[in-house]
């Protein structure tokens, strides 16, 4: 039987160390929402989402109450809209109508974000893909809860540099359209290499075409719990350090597994995966950078950071994999700047630069995340930053992503305020040397040699 110390330990994690389930994300396929006009497609999308997800929020709240574990977000991911709307959308305005429908459906069922305003163009773009991408600035500026992503590369296909070039411009347009709110639109857009089909985390969640009709995916969290556990082994050797992280990750993931099973049972849809990511929030004590400091760094970004992060990420996976048979999504430590108070502090102290963050993304999920740069950054420079990150993903056979915010009207030293979970971001300096001629080449970077495994 359970003993009192185990109960105390679990409740301490929840009440004092910010243990929570970060998200229950319901994946809903929209591939069956076919019709001959955009309006009819929108009606079908709205009907399907509001039917499938009608109990999502209430079931989430029920589970929270019965087990005493907070479930921070209830969200929805859908089939990439470029595929859903490809047959009927003839203009960018048509795609924006679908975005508004998604927004309306999200509000109706009470989820805080809905992901999947996406296109998968890792090799090339169809006319529909291109239209969707061109509609992103308006779609994000005219909706509140819609998240968008584009997959522009993969280890199997190489990198679609035409899409990379276009997206540099799209990010700037999105920033411009939402400049009154510190270019807030850009925080709802991610560009990926090797995007997973079952990621429950926003802004990059979508339901890939390899998935079933409706599925429940769960993202766990718990940086605060790992940090607290490491406090008890200060000065110990690496074996003890790794063992402690693994055990903690196991416990955290088991809670996620329980919530996923319960949600799946009560909602009547199959369980897909648990995403093992350590996801920080701006709350004190809920930070990846604090774990790195506890491991022994003065600030995140100090020499040794990449090694410490690599070890942390690997141990989290080793502990988590034992706790659930279906692990998927991104599964790794997230290192968003604006959503992690100690990362913000590290940037402001001059310890953490864009280049160091890029190195860190080689060893963890997911990429350059929630990074504010000066609003006058050129589109080609943004594309260059994206291309670098995509290359890391392509060569290392891992997911990488970029969520970058050129904050219009702000420059290095200023701070962008996004509010809530999205936090605040110090504007970081960007390398000013040009990559115009590189980015303006057309075509794609071929698949790397190690993708030829057949």
């Amino acid at each position, binding site marked *: 039987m*359970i003993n009192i110390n185990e109960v*105390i330990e*679990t409740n301490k994690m929840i009440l004092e160390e910010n243990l929570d389930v970060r998200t229950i994300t319901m994946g809903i396929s929209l591939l069956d929402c076919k019709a001959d006009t955009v309006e009819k497609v929108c009606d079908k999308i709205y009907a399907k989402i509001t039917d499938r997800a009608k109990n999502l929020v209430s079931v989430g709240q029920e589970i929270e109450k019965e087990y005493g574990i907070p479930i921070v977000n209830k969200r929805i991911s859908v089939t990439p809209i470029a595929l859903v709307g490809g047959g009927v959308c003839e203009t960018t305005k048509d795609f924006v109508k679908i975005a508004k429908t998604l927004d309306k459906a999200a509000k109706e069922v009470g989820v805080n974000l809905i992901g999947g305003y996406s296109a998968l163009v890792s090799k090339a773009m169809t006319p529909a893909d291109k239209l969707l991408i061109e509609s992103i600035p308006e779609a994000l500026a005219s909706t509140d809860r819609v998240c968008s992503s584009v997959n522009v590369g993969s280890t199997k296909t190489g990198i679609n540099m035409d899409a990379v070039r276009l997206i540099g411009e799209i990010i700037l347009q999105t920033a411009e359209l939402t400049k009154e709110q510190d270019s807030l639109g850009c925080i709802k857009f991610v560009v990926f290499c090797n995007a997973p089909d079952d990621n429950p985390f926003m802004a990059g969640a979508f339901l890939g075409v390899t998935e079933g009709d409706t599925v429940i995916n769960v993202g766990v969290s718990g940086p605060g719990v790992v940090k607290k556990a490491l406090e008890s082994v200060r000065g110990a050797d690496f074996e003890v350090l790794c063992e402690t992280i693994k055990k903690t990750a196991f416990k955290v993931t088991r809670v996620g597994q329980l919530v996923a099973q319960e949600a799946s049972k009560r909602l009547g849809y199959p369980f897909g995966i648990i995403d093992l990511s350590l996801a920080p929030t701006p709350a004190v004590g809920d930070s990846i950078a604090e774990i790195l400091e506890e491991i022994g760094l003065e600030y995140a970004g100090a020499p040794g950071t990449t090694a410490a992060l690599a070890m942390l990420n690997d141990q989290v996976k080793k502990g988590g994999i034992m706790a659930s048979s279906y692990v998927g999504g991104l599964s790794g430590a997230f290192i968003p700047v604006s959503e992690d108070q100690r990362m913000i502090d590290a940037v402001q102290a001059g310890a953490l630069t864009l280049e160091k963050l890029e190195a860190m993304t080689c060893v963890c999920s997911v990429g350059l995340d929630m990074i504010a740069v000066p609003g006058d950054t050129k589109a080609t420079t943004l594309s260059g930053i994206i291309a670098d990150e995509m290359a890391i993903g392509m060569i290392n056979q891992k997911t990488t992503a970029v969520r970058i915010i050129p904050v219009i009207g702000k420059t290095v030293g200023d701070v962008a305020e996004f509010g809530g979970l999205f936090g605040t971001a110090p504007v970081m300096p960007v390398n000013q040397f040009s990559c115009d001629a590189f980015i303006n080449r057309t075509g794609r970077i071929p698949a790397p040699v190690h993708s030829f495994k057949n």
Partner: protein
Amino acid sequence: MKKTILTVVGKDSVGIIAKVCTYLAENKINILDISQTIVQGFFNMMMIVDTNEASKSLDEISDDLDKIGEEIGVRIQVQLEDIFNMMHRL
């Protein structure tokens, strides 16, 4: 049978257990096990209870005990046992 774990944490005082047990008895909740300990000066009590015959839903029991906890200055939590089993048992 799904078991429920009831925890009481707070400053020790006379009558905490009596108050909680009275409520449980009134609502046909059977106590299977009780243990208590003092952690960092705080009173910690855990009860394993069976709510299957209870006259109220878990949701209502949880809200009622919240109120009782407030009255006597302790925090009372009611959670299904599974969360602890998942975390601490293979």
